[in-house]
């Protein structure tokens, strides 16, 4: 086999190697945060964007000036005004409010999907990499099939089967994201398996569960965290694409993707801002996750830099 090139290389950093040196006087947590801000301004900017979106998502009912599903048809397709800073859509609904509520849907699906995919990937990747042999061979063939699917096909069919909705979209995206992470986890675990400290734990009589929990998982957790952050961006992007094609969370829920979808295009010709704000929101959110992921990788996992 060819060694996996250019993808994430397994990291073999001992458990406490990456830790910031503690100085007396300042709590370690605060210190590392301030260091992060100073050394990674773009990452910090990404983090600010993410915090902003999380805030909007959690407090949508307080931040949104209007309801997302009630509009006044007399006000339809208005340009930006003081009352409606982003304008209104074809049903007279306030676009700003809809974009804010859209954050809640994107964030919920994004975090849910990544949680599912990470969980599945860790179980699959660790068992495949740790045990090796025929378990690995069998599991990897399943992962092969999983990866060889055109993503969108699987998404569209699964959503159609489960019925469109918040939870089915989350579940389906989680299933879709899992195999890629599983591959990375597997190769990291394989590198870990032969480390002297794992061997010595085995000699000392530690069982499989204990070795995985105390020696393998802590050492790949940085790689998993970095990957999960980047995948949040991928999940948000995939969710909006799915909504755009009409397979996302159904109306009247305001998803960013469906606000841009085909049926609205006729109205966009009359009021172009309809096509701008939701797209800008998607891009900003994905940009934030990518920036944060990049910076986290540099800090937590220097060997993966730039990969």
């Amino acid at each position: 086999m060819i060694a996996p090139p250019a993808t994430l290389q397994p990291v073999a950093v001992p458990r406490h190697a990456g830790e910031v040196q503690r100085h007396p006087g300042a709590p370690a947590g605060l210190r590392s945060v301030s260091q992060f801000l100073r050394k990674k301004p773009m990452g910090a900017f990404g983090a600010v964007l993410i915090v902003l979106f999380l805030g909007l998502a959690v407090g949508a009912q307080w931040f949104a000036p209007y309801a997302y599903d009630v509009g006044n048809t007399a006000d339809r397709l208005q340009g930006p005004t003081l009352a409606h800073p982003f304008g209104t859509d074809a049903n007279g609904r306030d676009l700003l409010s809809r974009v804010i509520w859209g954050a809640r849907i994107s964030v919920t699906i994004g975090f849910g999907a990544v949680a599912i995919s990470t969980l599945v990937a860790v179980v699959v990747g660790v068992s495949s990499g740790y045990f090796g042999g025929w378990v690995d061979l069998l599991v990897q063939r399943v992962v092969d099939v999983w990866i060889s699917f055109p993503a969108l096909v699987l998404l569209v069919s699964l959503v159609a089967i489960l019925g469109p909705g918040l939870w089915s979209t989350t579940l389906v995206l989680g299933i879709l994201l899992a195999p890629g992470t599983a591959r990375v986890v597997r190769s990291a675990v394989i590198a870990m398996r032969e480390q002297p400290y794992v061997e010595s734990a085995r000699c000392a009589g530690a069982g499989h569960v204990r070795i995985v929990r105390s020696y393998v998982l802590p050492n790949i957790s940085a790689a998993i965290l970095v990957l999960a952050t980047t995948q949040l961006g991928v999940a948000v992007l995939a969710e909006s694409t799915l909504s755009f094609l009409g397979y996302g969370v159904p109306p009247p829920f305001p998803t960013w993707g469906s606000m841009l979808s085909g049926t609205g295009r006729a109205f966009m010709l009359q009021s172009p801002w309809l096509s701008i704000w939701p797209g800008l929101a998607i891009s900003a959110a994905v940009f934030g996750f990518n920036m944060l992921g990049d910076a986290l990788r540099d800090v937590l996992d220097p060997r993966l830099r730039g990969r």
Partner: protein
Amino acid sequence: MSRYLIRRLVLLAPTLLGVSIVVFVLVRLLPGDAVALQLQDARASAADEAALRAGLGLDRPVYVQYVDWLATVLRGDLGHSFRSHQPVVQELANRLPVTAELGLIALVIAALVATTVGVISAVKQDTWADYAARSAAIGLLAVPGFWLGTLVVTLPSVWWHWTPPLRYVRLTEDPARNLSIVVIPAVILGLGLSGGLMRLVRTQMLEVLRQDFIRTAAAKGLAEHSVVIRHALKNAFIPALTVLGLQVAVLVSGTVVLESIFVLPGMGRYLLESVQARDYPAIQGLNLIFATVIVLTNLVVDLLYGWLDPRVRYA
């Protein structure tokens, strides 16, 4: 080498078989089956429905249907579309060139943009050009293709009353007109792919440029462009090639979206239509083709990798 190739080809079979089984079962789980959809307008009796079901072979157990389908596939036949009653092979043959053209142009654009910008960014590390290129790369990763497509279809028509040409002309009929239609979605698709690739080319270049043989090449008086392109880029591009191969799966999803926005009669749009109409043979055929393309590109990329980099050993 030949042993490796045979092993890889043998491993293709279970993968494709797995994909085909999953698709076969998935389409039959879709709510609202093909027969119900075909008869929804006509006032059909239960007997008509049963007759149609038997005619399409849908009254038999799923595993019998699958074995039958597999047998026809092995004879090079993908069955007949439920909608048009034409052979699926023919339906796909009509649409494949459209999607292949779109995808290939997009790949070429992605490779060209990513290499040029990535190399400049690496050679001029930590200058404004580098910062601009890196920000652009991250920006490109964040902008969804369907948004860019929607903007291109919408905004110019609002501002300048210009819309991109939306009536498709085949490449064989009028190459110039065909290219003018395909090039816009291809650029959007290509730019979307180029972001990640650009970052990879840059880091690989930075790594290679620090190697001893680069210093030697520079020391023996070679011109800078010769060092950068003939010595460094040749080595830096190999990992990028692998990633480009992996991007083919992303490309397939991209064509589905852009073909629907730009009304191109390709396989991506056909897929969405087929799912909507529950046209089982068409969906199965499309998935088999897509999966084969993805699996074969990965194989070709792996082989190319060893050919470009003789240090890689096949085992």
